[in-house]
């Protein structure tokens, strides 16, 4: 791009818009999953099975969207994610099994189970690109803004839903009685129980709600992005989301910002590769993880995990 070239500036603006759009699209499923995990971890349960919930949601979205359209697909993705999380909660909260081991089992169940069902129902030929998708919905006026308009105000409805969820979740956690009880369960379950909080029930509900959001992340992948299902298409997003929760210091706003940082780094990686620079592509692929690690190091010492995180007693 020649800076003297009057068309160069427009090209630059186009590239910036494309970058921002990609950042927001990549961040959306991560934001859902990270906010879901934030709820669970605030209640003291670390759900390592989040990756499985994302896969369950993706598969649920495929099945339901084929039969009932995009809306049914999103609803089913949340239900599927919640169902797997409910199984996790049953083991962890009711039966007192180890959270990490159980969560790992749930991830394997989500990956393997969806793959087996997919082949059974759709055959080895797969579903190809047969899923209806949610197109972008432009916000009147705002979507016409230069550069940022298309990126932030011409996205599928789920993206706005993710953005809306941030203040709602903040309000719930910090401004309601139930939110206070939930945080208390994550900090000092014994004290919470003594104060009359039904700790086991609250933890179960928090895990299930978190799983529903994880499922919604999978639904977003299928219905707002890929337009198809592929085995293992979550590609580690569940685990990235768990890291983002730490990056966001167990706060919904932090989780959303963390997802945006990771989304932006991933979008930058796509853009750099498309520029055609002849450097090893592995460098670019590592970029989002390096940036996230860097952000994590900078955020060190601010905020701390819930005191009872990962402990069996509820």
């Amino acid at each position, binding site marked *: 791009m020649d800076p003297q070239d009057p068309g160069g500036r427009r090209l630059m603006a186009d590239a910036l818009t494309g970058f921002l759009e990609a950042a927001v699209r990549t961040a959306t499923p991560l934001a859902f999953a990270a906010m879901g995990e934030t709820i669970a971890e605030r209640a003291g349960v670390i759900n390592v099975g989040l990756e499985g919930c994302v896969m369950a949601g993706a598969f649920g979205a495929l099945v339901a969207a084929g039969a009932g359209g995009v809306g049914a697909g999103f609803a089913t993705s949340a239900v599927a994610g919640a169902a797997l999380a409910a199984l996790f909660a049953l083991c962890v909260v009711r039966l007192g099994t180890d959270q990490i081991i159980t969560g790992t089992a749930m991830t394997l169940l989500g990956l393997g189970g969806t793959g087996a069902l997919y082949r059974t129902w759709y055959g080895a030929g797969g579903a190809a690109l047969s899923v209806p998708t949610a197109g972008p919905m432009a916000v009147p006026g705002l979507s016409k803004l230069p550069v940022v308009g298309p990126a932030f105000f011409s996205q599928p409805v789920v993206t706005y839903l993710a953005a809306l969820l941030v203040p709602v979740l903040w309000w719930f956690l910090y401004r309601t009685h139930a939110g206070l009880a939930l945080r208390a369960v994550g900090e000092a379950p014994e004290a919470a129980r003594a104060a009359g909080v039904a700790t086991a029930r609250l933890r179960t509900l928090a895990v299930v709600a978190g799983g529903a959001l994880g499922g919604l992340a999978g639904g977003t992948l299928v219905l707002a992005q890929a337009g198809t299902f*592929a085995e293992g298409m979550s590609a580690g997003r569940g685990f990235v989301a768990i890291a983002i929760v730490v990056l966001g210091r167990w706060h919904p706003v932090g989780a959303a910002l963390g997802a945006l940082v990771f989304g932006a780094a991933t979008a930058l990686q796509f853009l750099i590769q498309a520029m055609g620079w002849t450097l090893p592509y592995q460098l670019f692929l590592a970029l989002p993880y390096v940036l996230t690690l860097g952000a994590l190091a900078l955020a060190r010492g601010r905020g701390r995990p819930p005191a009872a995180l990962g402990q069996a007693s509820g």
Partner: protein
Amino acid sequence: MRLRHLALALAPVLSTACGGAKDAAPSSTFKVALLTPGPISDQSWNGGAYAGLQRIKDSLGAQVSHIQTKTPAEFDENFRQYGAQGYTLVFGHGFEYQDAALRVAPQFPKTIFVTTSGTTVGPNIAGMNFAFEEASYLAGMVAGATTSTGTIGCIGGTELPPVKVSFAAFEAGARRVRPDVKVVVSYLGNWDDVGAGKEQALAQIGRGVDVIFQNADAAGLGVFQAARETRKAFVIGSNANQNGVAPEVVLGSVVIDIPHALMLVAREVKAGTFTPRVVPLGLKSDVVTLVLNDALRARIPAAVLAGVDSVKGELLAGRIVVPRGTTPPVTP
């Protein structure tokens, strides 16, 4: 499909139950196994191999088994399992299985280990050389003639040597018809992430790419989706005939007839005439070909179609040798 899976699962049980005395000597059963690096529902590399395995079962009466491996440690483990169970022929479906074959094969001299797109040969190790480069070169000619921006792209899963070779040939083919063409190559780092496939394609389209050659298996579905949504680029598919995945945007596919290739080898092994070697498979054996999408054929200038045909003839006659790029030698 459900029945087929049941049949697969029951195959060993049934063959011992029904075969009775006839199959008493285990060596008389022709047993063929397949390891794939990814899901067989990808409509591409892995799906083709699974179809080949089914054909071997149906046509050669073989007892077959398939496992999807996730990590290199599982390559060795599963090779060993099949060797211990007395399988006659085990396919490791990809370049990446070669080291495991080298380690395991000496322990099971009665089993033949074939790595598809591998170059390793041993007393009971063979490879297959899919001549991707010939058909990819022809695909490059089509892309070079179709692009209006003069920028074309390649999107791969990971930088495996066969993928690099294929992309290098694609670039050379494009330069033959349009010497000033710009080629952008991107890799996703995996073969499953459909979302990343789509985003990478969108990023290339944003940079002016209007023909994309994809070789990313399941993740490649995202490339088709990006082209379908934007309608700003055509796609050339890989491995399987993907012209039907998105007929409105797919110019053609570099098709490896993997079932045919696996059958060729299995037939020789069953007949006892197989000699360990790198089996060459390309245009000549009709295993790797460029299949154009009839719905979009009109998009390609007639002169170019004629050129593709004549170059194909010269490739078959050996008068043109396609540059393979740089392939690192495989060391044991």
